[in-house]
Structures are given as structure tokens and as C-alpha cells.
């Protein structure tokens, strides 16, 4: 009996060693309109990279995105993103192939999957880099573009800030190997 338990413990650990998690990734939405440029930032990106099963899963609670002006944040939540109804921006997908990661060196990866925001889901492709650092953690950097009209998010009119139709999303996260 004890051996059996130990055996399963071992098996689970092998699987687990290929799974990386974070709860404090960094997402940056850059809105670059001709007259005003601002960032929406959250440090609460939750993410999972499972290298053995080739699964990527990321989400961020949009209530945590801040632009530096409280009233603009409230308008963003209430009028545009409608966070009460659709609180999350999510990405679930997989990499075009499972990369072989050598500690300390950067590897380009391509992910294909479903991005969902404001209740609308769309297939997207994201290019980024994965680095296994010396502590055995995975460092992820990725940039992709989101067209607000694809997700039924209206552009504000008559306001003191200008919102760009094309939002550049930058993701930076360090994922730790899942341990028991």
C-alpha cells in the first residue's frame, strides 16, 4: 500500500514538473491614439503552461486593470468592458509545437488559441518567447494586437481621452514550476 502511494506520488511529480503557473503576471494594454496615449496595466495575470500536454491558459480579472485615472477606470469598467457581466480576458490555446527549452536561452514560440473578452471569442495567433531561467522558472514575453471592434467594444466619443481602436497587448510573466 505504502509503495503504491509512493509510486503515484512519483508519477504525479513527473507530470507536475512540466506544469508552470503564475498568479502575478503583468499585462499591459497600450492605447496609442493620435492625440493621447495611455496604458492599462494589471499585475494580476493568472497563467498556466503545461509543456507535457501542450496547454496554455491565461486570464486576467479586468477589474484590476488601471490606467492611472480613477474616473477613466470606472468608465472603462462600466461603459466599455462591462466587467460586471464579463469580468475576464482569457486566452486558451496551444503552441505550434512543444519547444525544447535550454536553461538560459530564449526560444521563440507561436501560440494558437481562443482569446475571449467582452463576451466575444476569437481565434488568434500570438508570437512570443519562452526562457527557462536558472531557477527553473519559465519567463514568457508576448505581444499581440486586439482590435476593439472585433469584440463589440465601442470607442468612446466626446471624452477627455482618446481610445485607439487597435490595442497593443504586452504580456510578461514568470511562471513557477508547480510543486506539491
Amino acid at each position, binding site marked *: *500500500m*505504502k509503495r*503504491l*502511494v509512493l509510486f*503515484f*506520488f512519483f*508519477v*504525479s511529480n513527473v*507530470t*507536475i514538473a512540466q*506544469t508552470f*503557473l503564475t498568479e502575478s503576471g503583468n499585462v499591459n494594454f497600450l492605447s496609442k491614439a493620435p492625440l493621447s496615449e*495611455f*496604458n*492599462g*496595466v494589471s499585475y*494580476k495575470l*493568472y*497563467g*498556466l503552461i*503545461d509543456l507535457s*500536454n501542450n*496547454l496554455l*491558459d491565461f*486570464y486576467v*480579472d479586468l*477589474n*484590476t486593470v*488601471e*490606467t*492611472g*485615472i*480613477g*474616473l477613466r477606470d*470606472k*468608465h472603462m*469598467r*462600466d*461603459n466599455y468592458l462591462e*466587467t*460586471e457581466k464579463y*469580468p*475576464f480576458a*482569457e486566452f*486558451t490555446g496551444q503552441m505550434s509545437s512543444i519547444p525544447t527549452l535550454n536553461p538560459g536561452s530564449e526560444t521563440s514560440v507561436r501560440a494558437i488559441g481562443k482569446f475571449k473578452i467582452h463576451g466575444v471569442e476569437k481565434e488568434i495567433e500570438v508570437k512570443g518567447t519562452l526562457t527557462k531561467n536558472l531557477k527553473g522558472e519559465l519567463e514568457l514575453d508576448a505581444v499581440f494586437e486586439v482590435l476593439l471592434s472585433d469584440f463589440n467594444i*465601442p470607442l*468612446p466619443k*466626446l*471624452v*477627455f*481621452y482618446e481610445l485607439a481602436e487597435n490595442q497593443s497587448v504586452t504580456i510578461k510573466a514568470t511562471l513557477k514550476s*508547480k510543486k*506539491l
Partner: protein
Amino acid sequence: MNRILLLILFLMIPFSLFAQLERKLVNENQPVELIFHAPRHINLLTVEPLDKKSLHFAIMHTFGPLDGGIENLFGLDNGANIQFSFEFALSDKLSIAASRTSQDKLYNVFGRYHVFQQTQNGSKLFSLSLAGGAGVNSSNYKFLPEPAPTFSERMSYFGQVMLARKFSPKISIQVTPMMAYFTDIRPVYQIEGTENLYLALGFSGKFKVTDRSSLSLQYIPNLNTDLRDNFGIGWDIEAGGHVFQMYFVTSQALNEQYLLAGGNGTIGDGFRLGFNVNRIFATGQKRK
């Protein structure tokens, strides 16, 4: 038995990892925001909080009665009552404010405190805020044959509790039990009331018509005097950092004490045009 449980537990772990992450909110008790467009709604204060270190500046006007017709451009020719109000948020919950109203040249200082906010998950069904303050009438009464009122005889105070709920994305209602106290009542003061203490119940309603504009209502029945009730109906427009509020109201009063003691015209005939401009400055906040 324990071992079997342990075994099942270990068996489950590798399989559960095939699944996606569970989606969970960072703050489960996310507050309901923008119950009203601004910290003012027609004449009354609302539960709408200010972010720490932001400054709310309101310019409010009410003009003469409409019944003068086109000859007085529907009251615009008659001197306006104007109030300048500055409210600064010391924290996300507490703000302090100072205002000055033309009527009796009243200087008011007040504070607003948000006890709790309505939450999206329903753990709080409404928002509760408190406000209170003191004002001094600074008019020059040298022309009077009798001695001018002393400083303490010029003082007036107010206190109120604000309970508000956003019933749906379109409809918000606030109930405001209010009181005002005047240390002295003189005919020369621009109020109709003859009591020292005034009790009233304020009702504020917002009905969102488009994404950025709303129909607004105000009704303040007096509870302990024979003064007519205050009634107002208006239109709020949110334009980014500004909230414009245009309304018809039965009283020229703009601050709490005078709203309760000032007296009211009749609905329709005694209506006046009013206009507020609200601006929130995000001072001290870091642009990102």
C-alpha cells in the same frame, strides 16, 4: 481509510492539471460603480465616492422663475444663485469640501464619508454614506436699524444619511434623510422657514437613457414644516471628465440648509432653470 483517501487525492492531481485554470475574481466584493454620474445629483449630494486625492469641482447655478416668460428670457435675466464647491478626497472613503453660495453669501464646509458600497455579488445591497457640515451667512447687514446678527447667529448646520442602490444598469435611486439647523431665524435671511430645525427626506432618481446621459429626478418632502416640497427634474450628460446637469427645480437654493429652509415654488409655475458643471481632477494620481 486515510490511506485510500490519500491515494485518491494523489491520483486526482495529475489529471486535474489537464484542465484550465479556475476563473476567479481578485476581489469578490467588487463595488458597484457609477450609481450616479457625479457626487452631485441636481442639488443633493450622492454616495458617489471620489478616488483618493482627486478634486471635485462643481459650479452650480439656479436662475429666476420661468413664469416671467420670454421678457426675462425665462428667468435668466434675474440674478442667478451661484455655488462654487470644491471637494477633495483625503482617502477613498473620506472627503472634505468647501463651498460658497451667492444666496446670503453663505460659506459652507462639509465632509462626506462612505461607510460601505453596494457590491456586484450582492454582499452589500446598497451603498451608505454620511455627510454633514456647517455654514456661515456672510451678508453685510449694516443697513438694518437693529444690530446686525452676530457670528453665531449666522451659523447653520446640516447632516444627512445617503442610502443608494443601482437596481439595474439603468435605474439608480437614493433616499436621503436630511436635517438642517439654523441658530437664528431673521426675516432678512433668504429663507421662508420660521423654525430652527428642519427635517426632510430626499429622493434622487437616475434613469439612464443612453450610455452617457440620464434623466434625473429630485423630490424632497419636508417632514416638520408647512413649506412646499422641493421637486426637480433634469438631464445629466457625461462628457468624459465633465458631467453637465441641466434641470428645472422649484427652489433657488443650492446648499443643504437652504434647500430645506428656503421654501419652494409650485411645480410648473415656480420652476426655475438650473445648471451644474461637475469636473473631477485626478490630482496626485500617476498617469500610466
